[in-house]
């Protein structure tokens, strides 16, 4: 009797205590914090993110926070002009002539003036005109082979050295993304020639570029290729050569521990944009997504952008001090029909088209989105534009109204009936099925595995037997025409449409597909239309019309289907305001000056 009374008392006390627990109160002063710690999954490797080996998101984040430029992408994928830094305009369309003007009074973090000569770095490294195999000069840049090679003449630079006028030999529609500053040219030169003063160093660089002085260029290229690539092996501390650390942006580099972290502090000399409230940004490497989420819950980091899985999203949403931001990635999954796949061999064009259409009608896109994407982003929708205009873009609805995607958006019964009719026309049925091979990548990826299973199951209902063949090295086999179908994702790094021609265009010889046209779709109408993206400066409407022509042909020829836009997430401490994740680089850090507690 006595004993049970004690138990009862304890139980009541326990319930009372449990009821009042869980009131975690943050220490005072939280609102005055000026420190943000961002978790990243990979290590930073170099201060030169333009190097072809070091063009990583993590290096790019540092480059953006410590760098400056004419424009940047915001979270709506709009290219915003940064007039605090400078302006640019088209002087002439033919030949394409661009004038860039850097504002007066902007300085590098060592106090040296930022001027048009600093823009030369990008031209020297990317154009290829300053490489010389015989002399061993090679600038190992990721921009190699891009539009910069179309500039061959040294720009005209004004007397105050702020304005530069660049003349392109050929037209290039993506010129707006080319011009910017990276490393100060005087500091780069001083790495090779440490005894020169700032002025002498800049002069030596400019002269070497003007006269193609291969000896100097080799010394500079060697420094450019190697000197900055120490972040994963050596710390940044008082002994680091200060010439490596000169920046132009809102932050300077205070310290770095290889493989672990880098700390940036506000640059007192920065004046081309709003002064950030956050005085210190620390970038911390946490490879594991779950660990990222728990580090955020434990207040060790303030912002994370992990690989999204349904389980992680749920656990992040359950954390009391966390805000979860879902957003669409700049990556979209799509299904391709390989026009040279073995199944179509020997068929007439009309028959093959019918059968392809039948197949595409069976693809359960809504089911795929409902079952596999909505677990991460409940607002996810089927993607109906292959250009693509993503669902949030008003052009998505406009495009899908006219492109011919309509039949694929019907209810399942309607689609399957239509598919059955097309198959029956050519003698295929569930008893005599059409046999196709589906090739897909990442066999350990649950989403891909389930997508493939849903496709196979839906196709079987009408008499298409899909042989699903996953492979870890699927990407090596793209374009080898050994399968009939593939599904994978294309990812965008900018909003220019020039890349579409690489995927769907015809090579310059007029008979073979372009590099990434793995499905061997040779449609002259499409190629001609898409070429306009590179050959002309189109406004949004003009570009839409081109893409409309392309999408109409795409659905007419039944060469594939867009599936869905990837869902991404970011999460941040609840008290940190104005976190606005963005799909395009510089991703989550793009609006650092708006962050505050």
């Amino acid at each position, binding site marked *: 009797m006595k004993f049970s009374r004690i138990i009862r008392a304890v139980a009541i006390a326990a319930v009372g205590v449990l009821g009042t627990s869980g009131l975690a109160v943050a220490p005072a002063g939280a609102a005055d914090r000026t420190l943000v710690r961002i978790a990243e999954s990979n290590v930073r490797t170099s201060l030169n993110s333009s190097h072809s080996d*070091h063009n990583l998101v993590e290096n790019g984040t540092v480059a953006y926070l410590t760098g400056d430029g004419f424009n940047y992408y915001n979270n709506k994928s709009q290219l915003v002009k940064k007039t605090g830094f400078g302006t640019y305009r088209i002087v002439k369309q033919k030949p394409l002539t661009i004038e860039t003007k850097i504002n007066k009074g902007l300085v590098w973090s060592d106090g040296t003036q930022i001027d048009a000569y600093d823009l030369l770095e990008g031209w020297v490294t990317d154009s290829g005109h300053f490489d010389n195999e015989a002399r061993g000069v090679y600038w190992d840049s990721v921009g190699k082979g891009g539009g910069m090679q179309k500039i061959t003449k040294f720009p005209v630079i004004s007397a105050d050295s702020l304005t530069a006028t660049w003349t392109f030999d050929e037209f290039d529609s993506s010129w707006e993304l080319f011009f910017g500053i990276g490393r100060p040219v005087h500091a780069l030169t001083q790495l090779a020639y440490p005894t020169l003063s700032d002025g002498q160093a800049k002069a030596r660089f400019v002269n070497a570029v003007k006269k193609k002085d291969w000896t100097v260029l080799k010394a500079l290229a060697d420094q450019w290729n190697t000197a900055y690539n*120490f972040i994963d092996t050596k710390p940044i501390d008082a002994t680091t050569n200060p010439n490596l650390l000169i920046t132009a942006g809102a932050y300077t580099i205070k310290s770095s521990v290889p493989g672990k972290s880098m700390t940036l502090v506000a640059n007192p000399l920065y004046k081309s944009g709003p002064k950030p409230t956050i005085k210190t940004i620390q970038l911390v490497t946490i490879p*594991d997504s779950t660990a990222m989420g728990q*580090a955020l819950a434990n207040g060790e980091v303030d912002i994370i952008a992990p690989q999204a899985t349904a389980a992680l999203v749920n656990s992040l949403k359950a954390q009391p001090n966390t805000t979860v931001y879902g957003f669409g990635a700049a990556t979209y999954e799509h299904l391709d029909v390989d026009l040279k796949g073995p199944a179509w061999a020997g068929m007439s064009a009309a028959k093959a088209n019918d059968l392809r259409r039948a197949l595409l009608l069976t693809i359960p896109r809504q089911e795929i989105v409902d079952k596999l994407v909505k677990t991460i982003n409940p607002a996810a929708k089927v993607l109906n534009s292959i250009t693509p205009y993503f669902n949030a873009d008003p052009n998505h609805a406009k495009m899908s109204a006219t492109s011919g995607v309509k039949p694929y958006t019907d209810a399942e019964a309607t689609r399957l009936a239509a598919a059955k009719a097309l198959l029956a026309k050519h003698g295929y049925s569930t008893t005599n099925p059409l046999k196709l091979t589906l090739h897909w990548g990442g066999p350990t990826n649950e989403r891909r595995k389930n997508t493939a299973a849903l496709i196979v199951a839906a196709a079987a209902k009408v008499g298409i037997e899909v042989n699903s063949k996953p492979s870890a090295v699927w990407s090596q086999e793209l374009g080898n025409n050994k399968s009939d179908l593939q599904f994978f994702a294309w990812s965008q*790094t900018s909003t220019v449409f020039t890349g579409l021609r690489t995927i769907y265009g015809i090579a310059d010889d007029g008979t073979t597909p372009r590099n990434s046209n793995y499905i061997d779709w040779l449609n002259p109408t499409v190629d001609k239309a898409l070429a306009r993206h590179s050959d002309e400066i189109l406004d949004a409407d003009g570009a839409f019309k081109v893409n409309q022509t392309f999408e109409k042909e795409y659905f007419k020829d039944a060469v594939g289907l867009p599936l869905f836009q990837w869902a991404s997430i970011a999460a941040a401490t609840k008290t940190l305001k104005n976190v606005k994740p963005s799909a395009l680089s510089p991703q989550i850090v793009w609006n650092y000056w708006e962050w505050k507690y």
Partner: protein
Amino acid sequence: MIQYIIRRIGALLLVLLGSTFLIYNLTAISGDPLEDLRLSTEPNAQILLQQAIEKLQLDIPPPVRYFNWLMGILGLGGAGASFGLTVEGSAVIDIIGLAIPITIRLVIISTILSIVIGISIGIISALRQYSRFDYSITFIAFLFFSLPIFWVAVLLKQFAAIEFNNFLYDPVIAPNWMFGFAFVGAFIFASIVGGEKKRFFITLAGAFALNFAILSYISATGWLLTPSLGPVMISVMALGVAFGITQLSTGISNRRVLIISLALAALTPVFYFVMQPVFSETFEGSMMWLLAIATLGVGFVVGYAFGGDDKGPAARTGMIVAFLSAGLIVLDRFMQSWDDYYNNEWIFGRPIATVGDSKPDIAGDFWIMGVDAFSHLLLPTAALMLVSVAGYVRYSRASLLEVLNQDYIRTARAKGLTERTVIMRHAFRNSLIPLTTIMAFDFAGLLGGAIITEQVFAWRGMGTLFNTGLAKFDLNLVMAVVLITSISALVFNLIADLVYSALDPRIRVTK
């Protein structure tokens, strides 16, 4: 003996050759390093693709590339022996060089702690065979033994870090938790002490009351935010150490040694006050070694000088007592820095960390850095230990039980030796022999286990490098980790065999 070692090393090299060849090729065909570039719609993707193929030698089939790599490792490529470059072009040796100390730190600490704690529990468990304690420990050991470490890590982070840090905002222990902790602690203690039912319940009640009092004190004074032992607690604990160590070392009945131990313990509060100004904010960490040696010296001299007929055991006991008592003073000093650490801007009231091996940029004195190292080591060490302690408990229990059934133990008892002497001198030492083999295996196992632990706790040791290497198809990096860990595992096995033969004269290694 030498012949045996040479034979073993020969076999070791063959195993290495085979395993590295397999792993190299499996890693090489496990995915497509060019996937990103193939899916790039950049106008210059083709050029970058060509560049990457050239840099990574992807035009050479993996088995041939393996021999290129092997030549590089052996220095036959003409450029000296080298682990090569990572895909980003950094020297693998530099990256590995940074990672090895991190892994070693993690593994060494958890191995030592696992051995000490595991063997202690195992011995107690064997001595109290078929008791409540024994059954509970057996159950818990099997439970932990079967837990996946990543799951243990996630739970540890949730409860020992996130929830504990939340709790620290207002560190009042709720009565139900206080009851629970006090009871579990008391139950374990009473089970270890053992004895008749009546004695058990008396011990249980006493320990419960003491635990409850301590927890109430901790809760009421906010001790967890400003922890310290203070001279009084240090004195009491030092006396406890003196009794305990003397009992294990020579037995309390040896009055001379006991008096020496108690005298050394009595000196501790004096040294506490002497050391406070020395342990200032400018204290250099390297001084700690000198102090440790000096402490051992004092213990040795006192024990030796006053040891009478038992100079050796007295000196030994004196050294251990002096060292542990001095350790209490150091522990107290670290505790005094806890408050500063807690309020540091980089810590911001969240002292127990879930990721990383230290907080970058924290820049504090020796004491702050010590607390920082502790707060980061706590969880990963605990995760590795939970799994590995269980093994030691089981093995040392079984080993001691087997030894206790030997004839020579019966003989020792028969000739009237005290139970302490039988256990500590005859049984315990012999029971350790089979454990040497386990230790070598366990070290290799922990290196393997560290792959997951490091990843989960974001320690950039060799395990994390292995993971990143695999994800990026960075063959040179993966192979360097594989080579180093497999060599160390094989070498440890060899050493274990040799030590085994040295410890147990019945084992020969000649043929």
